[in-house]
């Protein structure tokens, strides 16, 4: 693993215009992704993780979005590039895998053409070479009869097949970074694990860095090297995957982990995080943003200006409320987590 990160996000703020004001959906996020590393970004719907993914690709409508901070890709700030310059990078050095394979493909274009299309602009290949490469890609993402599927339209393929096509499109020009925005959300469970297996296999072959956006902690455990937990536009906890599952600190991370049904205790009532992620306009902008959803914790337990602190090497947590956090039905002190 080289020390120079592939992707370096510094203090990124993504704000959307609603009527006349801008509201930040991603608020001061900093993170790194190295070569050959899978960074998972987890959180509930509406926590800003997809907004983060789309801003790396420059896919937000420019008229309604404000982007601040830096997104350095191999040292180049993507936010400072023109669309024309960005087009030379996205699709070539950065590939994106989308959430819903049913809508991510153009219904009027054969899948072969859609995979080739990116090559038209990034690689100088003859049409025969492009075709050969596309069929090779189809084979690589596990499509049977690639020669026939090349001429198929998206509606003729199943959801899992289409997601494989989307993946083939993302890796068509050998990117050094892949952004996967909930790649398995729209698929059923058996297909999900096949797609995850495929992604991991490809990642190991190509040594790419992956930003994996997901809300599925099972996928995180299976795939990720490092995890960033996002809540209300901020990273609340970041650590390598073993540390995070072993010693989760932030109340939000712990609540998420508590909400996973367990096969060992099938009768146990599942933990539910109270409330919902507040809508963009009503997002708390000061103090610990998670405090309203853990109302039983005393206000004095939170920091006024919570910052992301390194509590052990490589393990960052926001706010000090984790120190005395407990679930409502636990006895205070019984479940004291923490290092300090």
């Amino acid at each position, binding site marked *: 693993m080289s020390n120079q990160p592939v992707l370096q996000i510094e203090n990124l703020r993504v704000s959307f215009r609603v009527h006349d004001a801008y509201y930040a959906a991603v608020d001061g996020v900093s993170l790194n992704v190295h070569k050959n590393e899978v960074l998972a970004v987890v959180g509930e719907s509406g926590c800003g993780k997809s907004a983060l993914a*789309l801003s790396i*690709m*420059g*896919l937000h*409508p420019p008229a309604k979005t404000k982007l601040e901070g830096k997104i350095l890709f191999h040292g180049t700030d993507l936010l400072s590039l023109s*669309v*024309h310059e*960005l*087009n*030379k*990078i*996205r*699709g*070539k050095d950065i*590939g*994106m895998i*989308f959430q*819903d394979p049913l*809508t*991510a*493909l*153009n*219904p*009027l*274009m054969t899948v072969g053409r*859609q995979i080739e*299309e*990116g090559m*038209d*602009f*990034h690689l100088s290949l003859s049409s025969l070479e492009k075709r050969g490469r596309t069929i090779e890609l189809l084979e690589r993402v596990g499509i049977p009869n690639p020669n026939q599927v090349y001429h198929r*339209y998206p*509606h003729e393929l199943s959801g899992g097949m289409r997601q494989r096509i*989307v993946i083939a*499109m*993302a890796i068509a020009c050998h990117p050094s970074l892949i952004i996967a925005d909930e790649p398995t959300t729209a698929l059923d469970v058996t297909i999900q694990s096949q797609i995850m297996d495929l992604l991991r296999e490809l990642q190991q072959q190509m040594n790419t860095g992956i930003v994996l956006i997901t809300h599925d902690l099972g996928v995180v455990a299976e795939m990720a090297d490092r995890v960033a937990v996002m809540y209300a536009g901020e990273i609340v906890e970041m650590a390598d995957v073993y540390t995070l599952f072993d010693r989760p600190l932030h109340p939000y991370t712990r609540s998420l982990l508590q909400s996973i049904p367990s096969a060992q205790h099938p009768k146990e009532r599942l933990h539910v995080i109270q409330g919902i992620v507040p809508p963009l306009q009503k997002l708390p902008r000061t103090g610990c943003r998670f405090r309203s959803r853990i109302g039983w914790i005393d206000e004095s337990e939170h920091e006024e200006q919570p910052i992301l602190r390194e509590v052990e090497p490589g393990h960052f947590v926001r706010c000090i409320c984790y120190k005395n956090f407990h679930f409502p039905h636990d006895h205070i002190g019984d479940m004291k987590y923490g290092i300090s």
Partner: protein
Amino acid sequence: MLKFILRRIMMMIPQLLILSILVFALAKAMPGDALTGQLAQSPKMDANTLMEMREKLGLNDPVHIQYVRWVKNLLHGDLGLSYIHQQPVTDLLSGRLANTLLLSACVLLLTYLIAIPLGLVSGRWQDSWADKLIVGYSYVSFATPLFIFALVMLFVFGFKLGWFPTGGSVDIQVEKGTLDYYINKFYHLLLPALSGALIGTVGIIQYLRSEIIDTKVKDFVKTARAKGIPESKIYSHHILRNSFLPIAAFLGYEITGLIGGSIFLESIYSYPGLGQLFLQSIMQRDYSVVTALVMISGLATLIGTLLSDIILSAVDPRIRIE
């Protein structure tokens, strides 16, 4: 594809059958019969002769026999006799049909030539001043009645400025078949066609505009952007083709509508076409001509929908029947 078209044409047979029954029933339900018109011209005819003629023409036969005879004649291209014009309906229609088709085709072509670029600009640069101007134009044109607009056009460009002829489909003195003849014919066509096209664009402009606005935020467009494809190519390869689908479906109905719309255009520009004849024949109760024209416009509707189905299946792989 060929199979699909054949199957689609086969579907037209029962449609045509039902259409013919309807048209026949309507004709029967009209007050008077084929002789009423003739009667008006020779009021001295006595009741006995009338009875004889009715018997001779088979008007006293049972309805189903009359229907079968009518359809048989129809299939042989015999549409009956016009009692006002005293000539076979087929002869009456043949020259006018060509004129109407020519005018309709010109109106349609001009409509699309005007509407498609405007719709594209309007949808792509939504909310720009150009978009507002185009939408403004389309609303004004929508609110303008054709018969008033055509009159104004005729008055301004035909009479006041004298740029265009004010009536007819061709000047008498030009020799048929020469290049001059065709140029002259086109010259007569231009003003009515332009009048029809200029205020017939609203449907296409609005459809195309809203389709583009819908399509450009779709996921597959995001996918295309993520591939690093330049914006102009994203429009030509991804957004436009998907946005044209409803326009293609619309085309069939446009064809049908044009025959109705031509009634005004042809009457105002005294252009010898089917629309003008239709209006005259209704006024004069020229029953066999009206029946033939209703049948023709019914047929045009069927052909229109056939065309939109064929076009749609050509551009949209999802509805192709294997």
